[in-house]
């Protein structure tokens, strides 16, 4: 590990200033991802700015919805009464991830910015365009069972590993950030980027911007939202494929739908095409299958992950069927 200095930020402005002054500094949240990557030599900051003392832990009701502080732990969010009542998909998604010990440490901000689990990214002896732009992608000719089937490029086929973010994508969440140039808001679906030619740039957050909160807008049907995660063991494994879904069904018809996929792309994948198929259609098996088809249209599997395409389709159908059943108004 490289030597680094450690600073404890006293307030938001202090934290932002420290990272903005060009010292190759990084914010330290729970450290469950950043510190691991530092040990592996993947991240080499010269300074860690510990933000854990900042007053960003609150989870509160606002007129528009819920506001979750960036330093609320994954456990606190998942187990919070308001979250469980109003946005169950978020609670389910977080609880499907990592382990209790990790969730106790992990923060909302850190979870948004956790980096891919691509094996080749995490081992500095491999070429990797994300780690060393232009060095090549070892996963494309390599072992790519866990990699992307949607939205990848010939530069990078990594997936974003977060469960939480898939739920946030389905919930139209807004990320609130503070930077040297002031505060701004970034819709979650625009927060992460596809790899394109610059897989090293993973989000639209600037390096010196601090995530301060995530807003969840009120939505009546989010109360019946659900998360489904498919993985290689019963717990404590990243998603092969996951689905977050919410439906507003009235008299057997779908008024509105939200659908997002995890484990399939470089970002939490909001399936807008599928939502179009769903909206206005009857809540039945045929519709759900059509939605699944739409969501996976254009999927481009790699040598070892073709199974993900069919798996994702089936997961979508399963979850939509279940959500429709549980929704007032029921399935047609």
């Amino acid at each position, binding site marked *: *590990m*490289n*030597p680094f200095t450690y600073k404890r930020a006293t307030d938001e402005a202090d934290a932002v200033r420290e990272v903005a002054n060009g010292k190759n500094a990084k914010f330290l949240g729970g450290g469950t991802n950043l510190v691991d990557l530092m040990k592996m030599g993947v991240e080499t900051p010269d300074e860690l700015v510990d933000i854990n003392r900042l007053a960003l832990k609150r989870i509160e009701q606002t007129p528009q919805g819920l506001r979750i502080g960036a330093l609320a732990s994954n456990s606190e969010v998942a187990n919070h009464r308001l979250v469980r009542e109003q946005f169950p998909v978020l609670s389910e998604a977080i609880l499907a991830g990592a382990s209790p010990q990790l969730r106790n440490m992990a923060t909302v901000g850190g979870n948004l910015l956790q980096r891919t689990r691509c094996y080749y990214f995490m081992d500095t002896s*491999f070429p990797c365009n994300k780690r060393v732009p232009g060095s090549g992608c070892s996963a494309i000719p390599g072992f790519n069972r866990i990699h992307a089937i949607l939205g990848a490029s010939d530069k990078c086929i990594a997936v974003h590993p977060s469960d939480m973010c898939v739920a946030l994508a389905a919930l139209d969440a807004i990320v609130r950030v503070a930077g040297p140039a002031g505060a701004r808001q970034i819709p979650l679906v625009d927060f992460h980027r596809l790899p394109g030619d610059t897989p090293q740039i993973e989000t639209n957050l600037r390096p010196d911007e601090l995530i301060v909160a995530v807003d969840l807008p009120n939505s009546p049907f989010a109360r019946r939202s659900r998360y489904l995660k*498919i993985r*290689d*063991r*019963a717990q404590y494994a990243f998603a092969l494929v996951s689905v977050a879904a919410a439906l507003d069904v009235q008299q057997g018809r779908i008024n509105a739908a939200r659908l997002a996929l995890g484990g399939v792309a470089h970002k939490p994948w909001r399936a807008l095409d599928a939502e179009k198929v769903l909206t206005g259609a009857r809540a039945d098996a045929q519709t759900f299958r059509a939605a699944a088809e739409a969501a996976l249209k254009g999927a481009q599997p790699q040598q070892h992950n073709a*199974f993900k395409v069919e798996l994702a389709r089936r*997961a979508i159908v399963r979850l939509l069927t279940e959500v429709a059943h549980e929704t007032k108004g029921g399935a047609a």
Partner: protein
Amino acid sequence: MSAKQNQRPASKQGSGVVGQPLNRVDGRLKVTGGARFAAEFPHDQMAYAVLIGSTIANGRIKGFDTSAAKRVPGVLAIITHENAPKLRPVATNPAEGDAAGRRVPLQSPVIYYHGQYIAVVVAETLEQTQQAAALVRVSYDEQPPAADMERERGKAYPPKGKVAGKPADTMRGNTDTGLAAANVRVDEIYRTPTEHHNPMEPHATIAVWDGDKLTIYDATQYTYGVRHAMATTFGVPEENVRCICKFTGGAFGCKGTVWSHVSLAAAAARVARRPVKLVTTRQQMFSNMGHRAETEQHVVLGATRAGKLTAIVHEGLSHTSTFDEYVEPFSKATHMLYACDNFKASQRLVALNVGTPTYMRAPGETSGMFALESALDELAYKLNLDPIQLRLVNYADTDPDTKLPWSTKLLKECYRTGAEHFGWARRKPAPRSMRDGRYLLGLGMATAVYPVNHFPSSARVRIQSDGSAIVESSTHDLGTGTYTVLTQIACETLGLPPERVEVIIGDTNLPKAMVSGGSSTVMSVGSSVQGAARAALAKLVETARADTRSPLYGASADQIVASDGRLALKSNDARGETYRDTLARAGMKEVEGSYDTEFNDKEKKFSSHAFGAQFAEVRVDPDFGEVRVTRFTGVFDIGRVMNMKTGQSQMKGGIIMGIGMALMEETVLDTNSGRLVNRDLAEYHVPVHADVPQLDVVLLENFDEHASPIGAKGAGEIGIVGAAAAVANAVYHATGVRVRELPITLDKLLGKGALA
């Protein structure tokens, strides 16, 4: 022989503590942090060593640039092949086929595998050492690696050594005739991937030189082996080396041989002239401490319509390293498990640019029985026979390989009891015929077998003047319960309660014990402890009998029994005295007994094996192919059960490892570069609690006097044998899809398109 006939009284004399589910005597130490593992012995002036691994899998080192690393404050030494002290090679164990990497580290620039140690950095603190290690620059001349068994199969070769003591090609009877006579055949290929042991405790060594005397604290299964290896490597007399290992945090075989980090720690300590602590990383453990080799197994079974086997062929490939020969002996158990006149085994090796494979829990049986027991299941379906029935039709009443009678074999009872416990009768024979709501339900079974291995070993028992006793042998507790079981064995003979017996192990200053491998420890060391306890007690009895002031004066030795810390007349308990009285009056501090257990394996009159029957129930999601084990029953004949709790725990651990093997464990090599891609516990999956259902383990009562003087047959490994096959067979029963390539991940089921 029935279980009844084999039963022995739990204890002829003493407290009857053997067999009891005694809690671990070291449990409190462990949960309070008082148990000291190899890396936890403090030393003044301790320096830290970090190993650097090769980032290529094949080629040569062109050179090092250590200039930046040397500038890190606190750096004491950077040792590479360019400046390493001369280290002598060690003859490895076993003689036939190596299992420890015979190659001496840091003696040449040649790279054989990814992660191979190429340098040792020593510094004052761990952080400085890690920083300096990160700054060492290495240039290589890289060659394409042999990293894919499939791609290299054309270069397969016959092993030079033997395969589990047998020639690599063996034939009994004639399998061609046997197959010609068969009405039904199974002819399939089964594959098992590379797996890693992954004990919780990483390999760790502290080396302390005092002149040419070396003390080495090592996480090991074999203290005397470490001593021998270090003496050879550094050219010092064996007496100059002392190896200490009080607790081993799991091993499963990877700490059974002496890997090169041990000599590198000692070399670093010598160069730096300081005590040196070296703890390997999880990543290094994936490259340098062996693994279970990948196998490709071709099994052909021929059978009559009644299910009688007319031929068994078990042949195939496993990999080894390019510089050592280790054969994963997957055909081992097939020699003896089923009665069949015509049997052929043949194994070939493929050399890859990987570290040398080694023993991993039930080496050979674990991978081999997955194939054989899957094939038997396939045969049962073809014959429309119940899988247990098929096994009973081919039940071997004597060992078909050696023709010797079994010492004891309660396998029929294992099947019967297992079937009962598990509710096998409720199984509907047809695949896909059982459901649990949305899920497909499947029930499968397999046989387990593991041979009795024992090694010569010694122990000393000292009865103290305060009436307590000390038991000593340089054996090991890998978390298996050695401390506890040896306590019980001593208690039984000495007639003392467990709290009056202290067991001291893991130190080459103590009587010699061999490697704690092959499920041998309790049989070997336990027998020595029993012998030593008897010898010590006999001396105590002599002392009492010879003392005119003793109430036992003049009594004949066979009239005296020991219990509750007293010697007394068998016929009259009131006439006796405590050990303390005997010793105090005689003015003795202690009486000591020693015992060396020898096993005459040359003139064996019996074939000795532990047996078992494994039953798994799985639930498969018909849409996704996700498999979860929902119930598991394992019934075992391990000879005499020394401790019901630790014995059952061994079986449970084995079954859990078998579930992992069946469903998730797999080490993946990047076939382009030869680098390991999933070398940590986030990406190499082992079962978590949620993957493990309630495990129902039954240990049958038995006493196998031919297996070992204490009646035990060995418990450490048999629990994993057959467990993966039971799961795989259950998956077939649930889905109608036969997966012959482990692990059974959902893509292999989904890919078949046979699910809903």
